[in-house]
């Protein structure tokens, strides 16, 4: 018999026990807020962006062990990545980085992927806004 029987891989349990980057970022550049339609859980992801690179990420999650571990993993993976690179992180990649998830828990990693996408989209929306605001400002300056 094995010594320890566990639903999850050691890696999942390690992230579950010591989740990285728990919390919120003040004045974030992007926020993703998603709910899991399968079981009703919630994940929030905050990112800080500098020169198109994600420099910080934090999360808050209401959900199972897999949801907490994938949240923790996504914040680790995304740091230092460009916006384009971040958009390429898939739920499979997250699950793989955690040495796999039980099949029934794959939907929790989808939640993490979606939280990331929605945070990045929020950033892009805001930055466009900032950009156009800046342009407007320039325009009005000229007319003065």
């Amino acid at each position, binding site marked *: 018999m094995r010594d320890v029987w566990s*639903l999850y891989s050691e890696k999942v349990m390690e992230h579950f026990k010591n989740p990285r980057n728990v919390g919120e970022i003040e004045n974030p550049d992007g926020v993703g807020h998603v709910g899991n339609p399968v*079981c009703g859980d919630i994940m929030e992801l905050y990112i800080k962006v500098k020169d198109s690179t994600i420099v910080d990420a934090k999360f808050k*999650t*209401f959900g199972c062990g897999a949801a907490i571990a994938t949240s923790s993993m996504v914040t680790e993976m995304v740091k230092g990545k460009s916006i384009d690179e971040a958009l390429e992180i898939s739920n499979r990649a997250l699950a793989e980085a955690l040495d796999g998830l039980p099949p029934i828990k794959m939907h929790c990693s989808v939640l993490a992927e979606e939280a990331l996408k929605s945070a990045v989209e929020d950033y892009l929306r805001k930055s466009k806004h900032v950009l156009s605001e800046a342009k407007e400002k320039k325009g009005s300056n000229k007319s003065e």
Partner: protein
Amino acid sequence: MRRIYLDHAATTPTQPEVVKAMLPYFTNAFGNPSSIHSYGQEAKGAIEEARDKVAALIGAPSEEIVFTSGGTEADNFALKGVAFANEGKGNHIITTSIEHHAVIETCKFLERRGFRVTYLPVDAYGLVAPDDVRKAITDKTILISVMHASNEVGTIEPITEIGKIAGEASVYFHTDAVQTVGHIPVNVDDLGVDLLSLSAHKLYGPKGVGVLYIRKGTWLVPFMHGGDQERRRRAGTDNVPAIVGFGKAAELAQKDLSKEAERLTSLRDELIKGLLERIDHIHLNGHPTIRLPNNVNVSVDFVEGESMLLNLDLEGICASTGSACSSSSLEPSHVLLALGLSPEQAHGSLRFTLGRENTEEGIECVLEVLPRVVAKLRAMSPLLKSHR
């Protein structure tokens, strides 16, 4: 690491005395009770002795005890057996919305076969109103099935009152007593039931054996067809060692039933009180007093059950939850929803079910560990903020 097992509603450890009683029936006394020779008769004697002991535990005559493979089979047997034998009389069955899956799924199966099933609601404590049962009876009603006590929230149903109503209406009455037999006094005549399901492994017996009590004169079709075992009501070579184990477990349960119930009730209340005191935004599920001596079920706001369970398990505490995340269907417990809990509250539910090995020390350990676990998870909960 020391482990504290608080999931006795799921299963209980087989008592050493029970195992000891079973062992000879694997080896020396291995006979088939249907055989005429001495090996067979030795085994036959053993199962009849076990039958007497189980019968004594529920105040029934031995002939009305039928051994099955467990509680699920007993439930299936009762419902399908009565339904298919009484189709000519009617096609209506009354049950409740908080039954065990073994009853609910069997009812759904019967619905697909043309039967009509009424699922009665329960109040916020999980209690069924006897009057609702009375009102639901029609001239087509052939069976009423109401569980004796909820395996999830521990609420004990008014079976005696419902039994009277069923008796007056001459409708067969079944109760799933898997969680009560061996834990609180159960007497088939006092309860007024025609059929009653029980399971050995919930009362410190082995897995794989149960009983359906069938009152004499109850009309139902056999569950298994084959040999003549169990007075032709349940064919198949008898699981002799398990049946002997069940008998021993029943005997032991009867011995100190009231003392153990009292001991567990006081541990239960200590745990409930301690949890309500030490954790804010926590609610007791089920009835505060009309509940099983060993059941504590709470909902903790803003946190999810599986993540609480995993954290408790890391500290050696083994409990259970009705959270959607931990169910294979990813749906919250139908029982908690029937009590009127929101899906979020069901999400944060935790069930501790106490047993023989548990002591004051184990309770104190939970009271020390759980507040820490909840604080840790709340710190990462996005729900808490929106609440504030």
